[in-house]
């Protein structure tokens, strides 16, 4: 029902600059799909929906990025060289009705741009220092244990407004989707 697609730049990319990696979320089902884009706290897992990006360096596991620490990665690709930085404080912004968006069957949309959506900082700031092949991955997780986990850290509505908001959240399918990794060659 949901297709999450990453698009990378064609051809080798220069070192020292982030690669332009684009995200597309497509409704592949027969019915309308309700979904939210990357919200405050989505990338570092503080609130739902979770959009969790990573960048992995293929090869010897010694890859590193400017300002990024390395994380041991059991995946076959090698070493995770970029992943979301933890939030400094949990004061994430409130969910607003306009954050939930309806996609008609076949309709697609970039969840990391447009009104109310935030860019994926992991991709936007990853600037490799060493040449090589890097894999960009992204997972979308809407399967919150509690619908309240969508609401945010402050300014959360109360009463009817809260109920209306939770009713909107209830329309979002509970799912976990991973995009096919995109490989970017930095030289």
């Amino acid at each position, binding site marked *: 029902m949901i297709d999450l697609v990453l698009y990378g730049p064609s051809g080798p990319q220069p070192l020292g600059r982030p690669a332009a990696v684009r995200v597309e979320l497509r409704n592949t089902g027969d019915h309308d799909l309700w979904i939210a884009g990357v919200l405050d706290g989505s990338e570092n897992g503080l609130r739902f929906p979770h959009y969790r990006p990573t960048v992995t360096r293929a090869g010897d596991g010694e890859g590193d990025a400017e300002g990024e620490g390395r994380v041991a990665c059991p995946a076959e690709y090698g070493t995770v060289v970029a992943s979301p930085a933890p939030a400094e*404080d949990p004061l994430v912004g409130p969910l607003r009705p306009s954050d939930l968006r309806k996609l008609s069957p076949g309709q697609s949309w970039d969840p990391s741009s447009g009104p109310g959506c*935030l860019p994926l900082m992991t991709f936007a700031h990853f600037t490799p220092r060493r040449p090589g092949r890097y894999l960009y991955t992204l997972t979308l997780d809407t399967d919150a244990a509690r619908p309240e986990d969508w609401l945010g850290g402050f*300014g959360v509505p109360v009463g009817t407004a809260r109920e209306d908001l939770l009713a909107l959240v209830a329309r979002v399918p509970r799912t976990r989707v991973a995009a096919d990794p995109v490989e970017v060659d930095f030289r």
Partner: protein
Amino acid sequence: MSTASGDPTTGTADFSATPLADTSFPEEWESGQESGQESVRGDYGTEAGATERVQGEGPGRAAEQRQAAGGPAARAESGAALPAHRPTRGRYRGISGGYELTLRVDVDSVPGGPKVLRKVSGDFSSTGGGTQAYFGSFLVDAPTVSWTSTQVVIRGIASYTWQTAYTLVRVTVPRSRTNQRPGAATVEFLRPPNQLGATYVCPYVSPYFRTVEWEQDSVTGAVPFLSYDTGSLPQPANSPARILTVPRAYAEAGIELLVSGTANVIANSRNGWTNTELHAAMETNFSLWRNAPQWKLWLLVASSYEGMAGVRGIMFDAADSFQRQGCAVFYDLIQGAGPEEQRSMLRTYVHEIGHAFNLLHSWQKNLATPPAPLGGNNGFADLSWMNYPQNYQPLNGNGGAAAYWGAFPFQFTDNEQMHLRHGFYRNVVMGANAFGTGAADIEPALFDEPLTDESGLRLGLRADKSGLAFGEPVVVELKLETTDLRGRATHNHLHPDDELVSIAIRQPSGRTVLYRPLLRRCVDQDQTVRLDAGRPAIYSSAYIGYGRDGHYFQQPGTYQLRAAYLASDGSRIVSPVLRLDVRHPVSQADLRLAELMTGEEQGKILALRGSDSPSLQSGNDALQEVIERHGTHPFAVYARLAKGLNFEHEFKSLSPDKTELTVRPPDPKSGIEQLAQVVKVSQQGKGVDNLTLNLASRRLARAYARQGDLEEANSTLDRLVKHFDTPAFKPFVKDAVRDQVDSTKARLTEEFGG
């Protein structure tokens, strides 16, 4: 609300402005107290002088009387150099008629001191018996300031948290020398144009705009942060090396953090701390705590946050009825003696305390109630204590933590400083409005219509059409006209790129933003125009689709726009609301055209009226595609206009190392190719508005003249006169166009005729 009846600005209860006893003054001021009996005449300004005459011995003379009675003034001893003037900046307080006024004056500073925000603000509380209750606040957003050797007079229209007819505020502060104690400010509230209401004489209290008592406790084993030398690590050139403590960082924003209470060391919680536990610890250990609005806050240096890795700090008091009284930092994560750790630790402390002042993260300002505009790159470009280093994304170049620290000058943004110093009381004070409420940097109420308007001026805001296609550039026309048959003189800066005109845009989401031009022009108010029967109005047209915050009309729906013009006499003239509908795209072709018009680079090119900048190449390519592949589409005229105006003019570029200036000469042939089309379709009513047509025609004529074809230049200008020579235009408009054409012809002949 008030325990006194009435309105603190009307002065109906008591005109005998009673100064409070002065608070303590530093010793160096005492030596000046007995000196200075210099009579202060002062250039009070003709209008203020007229007010004094009307009021006779009334409170309009209060400032002078106070000074004549022994107020501060300089004694000019022969041969002795006088010490420098003390800035008037700071906080004052006075009582009148059952109300206490806390006044904040922010129109000057000292070298290296807090930035001048050019505001005056204040909070009223009603006093009765032994009680005092907050009444309301006001802000003069853009006052006029006049200086003489003896006093500073600040005046302007205020916005209030309640409705009052006494909207004009005049503050008079005597100027004193650095060896004298500061003089008292006299605050007068007037019903425009000059009906005097309440007057308050407010002795000086502090150089700080607000003072907060700050109590800090820590858990066993945690070592609270002390100071960081900003010169320890590379920092930007605009940030001098200095020792910053947490109070010092706030002092630079004009806020005093007064360390108070006892620094307790409390037992640690090995499993970390939850919000509930932190709140309970605050109630137990914060000696100044009570559930009420008060300028007091508590910070706990705790060990760690339970259940969430990576959390460096939290303003945990965001759920009950008296929020923002406490915050915590988590020592286990932020500790370290190295300069990088110390720098980060300072930032975390200042950041979390910022939340207690109701400051949101840089990218969250639009989530406030009411919403506020975001800074560049949706706030991620803010160089602020309230941004995350790892989220920093400058307008150009790579972002991230290294880029942030390389550019961060250890400060709040101007809008944040505006909130800290001048935000309405309940929006800032701890324990009042909930976190995120009143955290807006602009109050949409600023654009409410004034209760009375005797300015003699009227502001109109219109667009050529009420419905726009998605992606269509938004151009509005402003008209300022006189409603006074006797005529009015005012400045002639009517474009929103000038600092005296603002446009608020309420977007379909309900968010209200302020149009912020890419380049703000500082203007000279002395250039005035007289509006009378002969010339009752002036006009301006402006592209407002794109500004410092990006595209403002990026989604279909209904937009409400309102403009405000700050007149020479301080009146704020507000236009009626203009409603604009941005239609949904109905076809793929519509979408493609909208994409071609609404990229960031295209927005900049349209706002700048064209550019050769290599950094805008893809934007120019997109506009070229509009011209070449969709040449008859209504959008093409805007692409042609930007390109045509740019071709007609030379373009200067600096080499990447900034050592070489390249000048691309004007390209009249290409300019004519584009502008002739703009003029043609616009004269048929299918292009740009008439003001822009006027501009395009004159620039087209210039291109012809530059090419040596003065005859065609004159014909172009004649056609412009003919276009306006219809009953649809008022005679003074036709006359103005005719005069403009005549002077343009003369100039072109002089420049290119030889």
